[in-house]
């Protein structure tokens, strides 16, 4: 019986397509950081080693005074002593509260800055100048003080593009799953367990807690 060339071509094309799609999905999975129990990680807003024994997700609002307190009292030492040393994988999540008029705008600018690798300086300037820009709404001017003209152009384009809200909404939805009702809320993941904590903590408190978690067998 003679072979049907049309069917053979269809079979070959289908097989090649299947292999291509499989490889693409594997590559896509590898591109997203995978941490046990944690989903939808934006690599631009995550710091440290994803193999760290503890993962910290911080849900915060740039216009929230308590979030500013948490940032100013813990961030630098946390990054130096735990994130850089591979003990903690830190993920920043946006949870803009409805009563803060400019928090979503601030979150957009921070996300845009994250995409060009400038998340940390923008986060710092937003929190440090919170009292000023929450009165005037001038988030753009505040961010512009720490970015170059070229960087600001890229950030503004990203903010105007309207694609950043999807990420903010994903973070907010994740916060609903964790039952986040106030900011800041820090969710600790360690050894398969999840511990959400609402409120501000001093660095000493955080250090004691992290050390205890690390010493658990």
């Amino acid at each position, binding site marked *: 019986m003679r072979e049907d060339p049309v069917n053979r071509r269809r079979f070959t094309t289908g097989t090649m397509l299947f292999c291509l799609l499989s490889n693409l999905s594997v590559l896509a999975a590898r591109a997203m950081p995978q941490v046990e129990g944690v989903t939808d990680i934006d690599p631009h807003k995550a710091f440290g080693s994803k193999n760290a024994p503890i993962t910290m997700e911080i849900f915060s609002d740039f216009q929230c005074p*308590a979030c500013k307190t948490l940032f100013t009292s813990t961030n630098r030492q946390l990054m130096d002593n735990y994130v850089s040393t591979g003990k903690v994988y830190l993920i920043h999540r946006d949870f803009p509260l409805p009563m803060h008029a400019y928090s979503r705008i601030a979150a957009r600018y921070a996300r845009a800055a994250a995409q060009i690798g400038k998340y940390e300086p923008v986060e710092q300037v937003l929190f440090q100048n919170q009292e000023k820009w929450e009165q005037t709404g001038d988030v753009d001017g505040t961010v512009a003080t720490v970015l170059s003209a070229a960087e600001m152009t890229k950030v503004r384009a990203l903010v105007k593009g309207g694609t950043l809200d999807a990420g903010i909404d994903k973070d907010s939805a994740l916060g609903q799953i964790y039952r986040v*009702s106030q900011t800041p809320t820090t969710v600790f993941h360690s050894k398969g367990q999840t*511990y959400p*904590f*609402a*409120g*501000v903590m001093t660095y000493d*408190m955080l250090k*004691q*807690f992290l050390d205890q978690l690390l010493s658990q067998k």
Partner: protein
Amino acid sequence: MMQSSPLNARRAIIWIGRLVLGGIFVYAGFSKLLLPNAHLWPMFMLKFSVSMNIASFAQQVESYKIISPEASQLVAHALPFVEIVLGLLLLIGWRLRIWATAITVIMAGFLAAVTRAYLLHMDINCGCFGVPEKLTGMTVVRDSAFTALALLMTVFAFREAREPHPWSAPEKV
């Protein structure tokens, strides 16, 4: 001859005051220590939960801008325990006049603070119980009602102490 019955309006108000205010004070104290973070086990989880809850309460006290940050820390560490003890003493009814007076003074202080914050249009949390609760006009109304109940309970407790129970044995001559 008219005699006051064992159960009259004064004694009813004293009972209601003891139950309501005693219960609320105990709940307020425990909620400040155990809410919103209530990880109870293992022990270091409980310690961290309580520390964070007290830290949040200290922030809420400080947000009233009446006392210094250091004094806010002191109040935050002491007040929950004071509330629990006073509430229990009120429920038990031991030395009622003393603890009813103390609770009335504390409630008057709370009422003054929330009224001031409300009149100044301060956008803050009440800090009354562990969970975040916006300070509104209803907070002032609620605290006014509790303060009035505390005051009535205290006044009636003093009056009851001056008048002997109608069924008590007469004094020997």
